[in-house]
């Protein structure tokens, strides 16, 4: 499956794990800090993944608060 990461934007090809939550654990991503968008739709952590999926892991943490 294809994983799109941001900041900077890049793509990874990885074997599809069983679900979204496992994908985040495999990539060592804190779930609270991202949205997962599968095939242009938001995905919850229990959603199953397949090799044909394109998943974007979009960071939601913004800085610059002063």
């Amino acid at each position, binding site marked *: 499956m294809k994983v799109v990461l941001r900041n900077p934007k890049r793509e990874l090809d990885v074997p599809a794990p069983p679900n979204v939550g496992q994908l985040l654990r495999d990539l060592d991503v804190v779930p609270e800090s991202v949205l997962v968008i599968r095939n242009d739709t938001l*995905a919850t952590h229990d959603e199953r993944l397949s090799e044909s999926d394109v998943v974007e892991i979009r960071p*939601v943490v913004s800085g*610059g*608060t*002063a």
Partner: protein
Amino acid sequence: MKCRRCREPAIIELRRHNAGFCRDCFVRHCREQVRRAIDEFSMMQPGEHVLVAVSGGKDSLGLWHLLRELGYDADGLYVGLGIGDYSESSASYARAFAHEHGAQLLEIDLVDTYGFDIPEGSLAARRVPCSACGLSKRHVFNEAAMTHGYDVLATGHNLDDEAAVLFGNVLRWQTEYLGRQHPVLPAAPGFVRKVKPLIRLGERELAAYCVVHGIDYIVEECPMAEGNRHLGYKEALNAIEERSPGTKAAFVSTFLERVHSRFVDEATGVRDDLRPCTTCGSPTPPSAAGVCAFCRIRARATGATIPVTAS
């Protein structure tokens, strides 16, 4: 996962609420949280003219959308900060939203109006970029809202922002800042009322709100914010939240309910002592020799001379 409210398939899980929500129930949840924040803190009244500070990011565009959905008369204000391609890109998102939703967007360019940009201002004032940027934006937002006669200025500070600021203020026991940290700063001579209607929504909820409404926003982080202190605080708080969902919300709400009032006098005292800046007329503390921090940055960045009076 099922939606907690209607049992349809969920699109998002919010561990803080121990719940999943489908699209429609999630949108309703976001509106309810903003409505509750506005009502709880008496932020604004129906019919008031609201100016939303818009950066092109998820929080400010989400806020603008939510306020309009809730029936508020809300215009946007975009300030061009002169941060290269990032500023050009963020402006395009703000303009696209205004165009698509038939909303009015005021634009102020820092270079065109004041003669300097954030990289120059930061360098000249020897401040970290986020400090020069925050100070400049606060000044320009307030001045624009006052000049154009808006009743209230709304900013996109969300629950995560407030938790990170509170964390920083507590770590350093900055009691004056603790007294000032509140979802509403009332109007005062020289100051428009400022409100933070997103205080009950996290930034993950704001990003999701934009995605489900097809609101395009700038996902890239400001290049000048890299390594800033607040990003570090957010990382630490998210690590705690991961182990103990709801901690950030409890941290902020408990502060507002039980602690904030203990420090109000320190902040009020500072505000009572303000005098008009000799250059621009904005309220400024007597310790600043008559010239506000924004005018001092501007003078250093542009090489202009400024009149300084004895304090």
